[in-house]
């Protein structure tokens, strides 16, 4: 089952990139050549282009971009993980509540989801972010997750409804298994696949969103650095400060693209069609 995935070079490469970034995030303080928030020399090292001493250049207050990128991997990936976790958690709760509810409640819950899906996410996000002022990374990640779970809820409900009619679930019922046991043993494990897909795609969505939010002024609180905040620092002057845009963008693209590939391949693997 997983052997097929293991033989898929694109999946392996993408998973390896994600794995490598996780390793980088864990080891960031050891790997970073300078302390990430050290202002090296405010008079001489501001916005200097890549050099032997600073491979990725320095930023506006003379911090080493490479070090910030490496340490930023922590914030970005942790935020990604928390946001994805939040959105999956809420999505599973809401979706399964809808799937298991009587029809009228199910309808009510799903209409709410429709409304939320029709709602521009960015407005929601901006409003919430503005309401709380500048949030530390973890609550910000929770907010990111909390505005992005509607699709997951829909997926979970659809999957649960479909699973309820799957023949192995009917077979378990025919065997005389009680419903809670069927849910626990036969239904929930089968949600793992769709959720893995939803998780990778949510990660792919959330990481650039954080960048966009930072761009609009609601991102990670200084001096912490996420890739999004690094990118936003110079996003309006990509020509003059190319190193402050290029490297964080590459890092971001590598993670987002990998997460997308992993999600796509898992989707194909679990045969979800265009449901997720």
């Amino acid at each position, binding site marked *: 089952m997983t052997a097929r995935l293991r033989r898929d070079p694109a999946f392996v490469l993408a998973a390896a990139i994600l794995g490598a970034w996780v390793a980088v995030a864990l080891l960031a303080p050891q790997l970073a050549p300078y302390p990430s928030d050290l202002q090296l020399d405010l008079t001489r090292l*501001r916005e200097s282009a890549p050099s032997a001493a600073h491979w990725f250049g320095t930023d506006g207050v003379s911090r080493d971009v490479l070090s910030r990128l490496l340490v930023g991997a922590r914030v970005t990936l942790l935020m990604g993980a928390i946001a994805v976790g939040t959105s999956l958690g809420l999505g599973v709760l809401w979706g399964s509540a809808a799937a298991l509810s009587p029809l009228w409640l199910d309808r009510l819950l799903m209409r709410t989801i429709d409304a939320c899906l029709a709602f521009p996410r960015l407005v929601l996000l901006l409003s919430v972010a503005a309401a709380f002022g500048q949030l530390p990374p973890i609550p910000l990640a929770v907010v990111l997750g909390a505005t992005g779970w509607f699709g997951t809820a829909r997926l979970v409900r659809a999957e649960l409804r479909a699973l309820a009619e799957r023949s192995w679930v009917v077979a378990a019922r025919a065997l005389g298994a009680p419903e809670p046991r069927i849910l626990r043993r036969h239904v929930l494990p089968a949600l793992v696949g769709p959720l893995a897909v939803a998780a990778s795609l949510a990660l792919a969505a959330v990481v650039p969103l954080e960048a966009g939010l930072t761009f609009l002024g609601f991102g990670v609180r200084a*001096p912490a650095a996420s890739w999004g905040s690094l990118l936003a620092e110079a996003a309006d002057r990509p020509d003059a400060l190319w190193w402050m845009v290029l490297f964080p963008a590459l890092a971001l693209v590598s993670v987002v693209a990998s997460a997308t590939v992993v999600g796509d391949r898992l989707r194909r693997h679990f045969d979800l069609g265009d449901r997720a």
Partner: protein
Amino acid sequence: MRLLALLAVLGCASPDASRTATLVVATSAEPSSLLPMFVTETQGRAVSEQLFDRLSEIGPGLNTVGDAGFAPRLAERWEWSADSLRIAFHLDPRARWHDGQPVRAIDVQRALQLVKDSRTTAPQASDFGAIDSISVTDSLTATAWFSRRSPQQFYLAGYLLFPVPAHAIAGIAPDSLRTSAFARAPIGSGPFTLVSWLPQDRIELRAVADHYRGAPTLGRVVWQYASEASVSVRRLFAGEADFMETLSPPDVAELAKYPEVRAVGYPSFDYTLLAFNARDPVRHTQPHPLFGDRALRRALTMAVDRQQLARALFDSLGAPGLGPFVRAQAFADTTIPAIPFDVVAARATLDSLGWRLGANDSIRTRGGKRLAWSTLVPASSKNRQKAALILQAAFKAVGAEMTIEGLDFAGFLARQDARRFDAAIVGWRPNAGAVSLPQTWGRAGLRPGGNNLASYASDTFDAAVDSGVNALSPVEQRRLLRRAFETIIADAPAIWLYEPRNVAGAHRRVAVPALRPDAWWADLSRWTVAARLPRDTVTR
């Protein structure tokens, strides 16, 4: 090819060629209104003051005391009563509203009535308390009656008050004036008249050919808006815009690559400070647990190398702040001693205050409390964000932890108004005169809704400022205010961070005269442009 055309353009900027020209001003904020009485921000003033003329214009020295240096505008002359409680303004009989009606005394009277009417919600209403009323002596003579003598009497009536076309707004109730269609498409008396205002896009003004002060030398002025400042800069660099009011230091550096564009420096009226809240952010009657302490504020001030901060942010285009004033103000005094940058002394003071550094700590503590606070910064300002980072590092070096709380502007203002902050990096733009000093730093500004953000309270300062504001000669004012400034700088209710030198960007085809620090646009109608671009096709 382009370069040749450019060379041809240079040097032949004659007023006549200029009359067909279009000057494009790139900017990032639309006016909040086109009626001067509602405008608070420079971008809005730049436009509305082309549409509306004042009674008189301030002189290049920006002196606000008496009427020295003021030049006639709508009022061709004025005379003081013997007791100085009345000024009669004689209007220029040639002055016309854009609809052709003459400007009359009733227009001046109506302007004051509206500004003072609280239903109009004009921001400066309270400033006009000193003017009792304006009476119409004859159709071309308006007399302002003052309740008391003050050095700024003339400045108030002759400069801050803009006559309005009474006939055009007769049907508009004061409380709907702000939201009326007239506020978006007003009839003014200035050298330019409004052609169109496309929201989020541009405002187009056209020269009034038969203006009483003579036709402007520009055919048309267009303000082009882009909420992203970088778009405005790119427009300037690409030659699509002719002028931009302020460039950031990196943009000034970048500008060297574009031969058609040059930098134009001029003094600034802005200064930026780190305000320490002397009161507790929650219980306003209590002193702030940290910043209620003058010695601590002084110690923290000593930890900051403002010279380096200004250089890091602006290179040569900015200077460290001096105090609650800018160098361009008439009463500015650059010789007042500042609290020196001295990390050793800062550490020693903190030690002596009981804020101790444990063996393995990086942050000082006293009685179990960490020397830590949060500082509000508007996230939209890159300079202030950067300054916050540098301050953060400086405080860390002496064992204090400053966290940065970036907020969008509306959120920032809300917190600032409610005084819900420990410290805040605030940008300030004082009036040319000293009138607002008691409001911003004196006890008068402590009331809710007042502007004394730091809740600074000092009897010495109040007394000195009060007499300084009311001094009737510039020399006396300067002397009295020096005492006030010495007091406040020593009390360190804020760290006066920096005062940028403004750098405007202009296309080389534009002949830019010396720009006034408080209003770069003051002489806009006299600018000339070598008209050679497709947009310079204004016909009269």
